[in-house]
């Protein structure tokens, strides 16, 4: 889930991560400047074109990826239909789908460590103002390292629960999962200490 990056190399893979991050932010600003559904639909169509170099399979998969957002589309669309403002609803939905598709495209064609390095270099100028950029990058990388660990932990806990109970685990997982996070943090702190000289 966190490693979407496609193994095949395309032209988009060769665009620098910093350029893609800047591109996403720029696209975010541009979409906010217009509320014309036709224009937004055109941008959305353009995004789909950008998927084509990834091959027909990936381009065809875009609707499936967007389908993930159906509850939001339903709520926003339904709401605006009820209020009699379908055009405003369409604008919100088109912006949402376009931004989602663009961010996914970035993940598909960029390794996360490259994105993180680009993110750090974009923050670097703020280092003079006292922003601890290296630590921020370290925290982000460690969070990504531990998301699959905790996800696995959650499913192990649910399994252990099912093995001994007919009822669903659900909220009963919260305490053990939080404990797991705290214990992993203790180990990680020690591992960090073993190989670094943070002060």
């Amino acid at each position, binding site marked *: 889930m966190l490693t979407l990056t496609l193994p095949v190399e395309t032209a988009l893979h060769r665009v620098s991560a910093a350029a893609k991050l800047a591109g996403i932010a720029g696209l*975010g600003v541009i979409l906010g400047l217009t509320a014309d559904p036709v224009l937004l639909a055109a941008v959305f169509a353009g995004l789909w074109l950008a998927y084509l170099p990834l091959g027909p399979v990936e381009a065809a998969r875009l609707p499936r990826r967007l389908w993930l957002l159906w509850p939001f589309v339903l709520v926003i669309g339904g709401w605006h239909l009820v209020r009699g*403002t379908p055009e405003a609803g369409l604008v919100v939905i088109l912006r949402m789908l376009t931004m989602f598709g663009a961010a996914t495209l970035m993940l598909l064609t960029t390794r996360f460590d490259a994105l993180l390095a680009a993110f750090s270099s974009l923050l670097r100028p703020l280092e003079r103002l006292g922003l601890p950029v290296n630590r921020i990058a370290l925290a982000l990388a460690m969070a990504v390292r531990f998301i699959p660990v905790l996800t696995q932990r959650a499913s192990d806990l649910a399994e252990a629960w099912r093995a001994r109970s007919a009822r669903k685990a*659900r909220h009963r997982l919260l305490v053990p999962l939080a404990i797991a996070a705290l214990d992993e943090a203790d180990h990680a702190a020690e591992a960090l200490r073993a190989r670094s000289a943070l002060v």
Partner: protein
Amino acid sequence: MERSLAHIALFAALISVLGFLPRIDMVAGVPITFQSFGVMLAGAVLGARKGALAVLVFIGLLALGLPLLSGGANLWSVLYTPRIGYVLGFPVAAYVTGWLTQRLTALPLTFAAGVAAVGGGMIVLYTIGIPVAAYMNDLTLAETAAGAVAFLPGDMIKAIATGLVTGQLARMRPGVVQSRA
């Protein structure tokens, strides 16, 4: 130092994972996830500053495009939706939850963390989220607030859970609840 950094990173991961946990469908048909519970818990357990930093790391991951918001969204895809105010309000919510937990020392921890979660995770979060949602939906504040009532029961449950879980963590791992250290 290492410990603070590790706690911040691990709570950012925990908030992310809580977004994938199966939803609980509420009576009113409003699905809730435990993600905002994770935000409240970060504040209640790590305290104001580290709790807010953990949430900021989570938002950093969303900004890099990772689909970690419950429902599979990233920061960019919620940018122009009514939800953006709530997401950007998360760090403030964690900060206030931690700040209150640290100050309500007269109350037992479970109770203090629960009250703090209501203050930070509900009152403060709504104060930020509702005006933004009103603007995005082109509605009045009153109309938007009326709509937000649907989230009250779920958020109330999460605030209570924050109190209970924080209390249990303090018992099972003494010294770990830093808002009271």
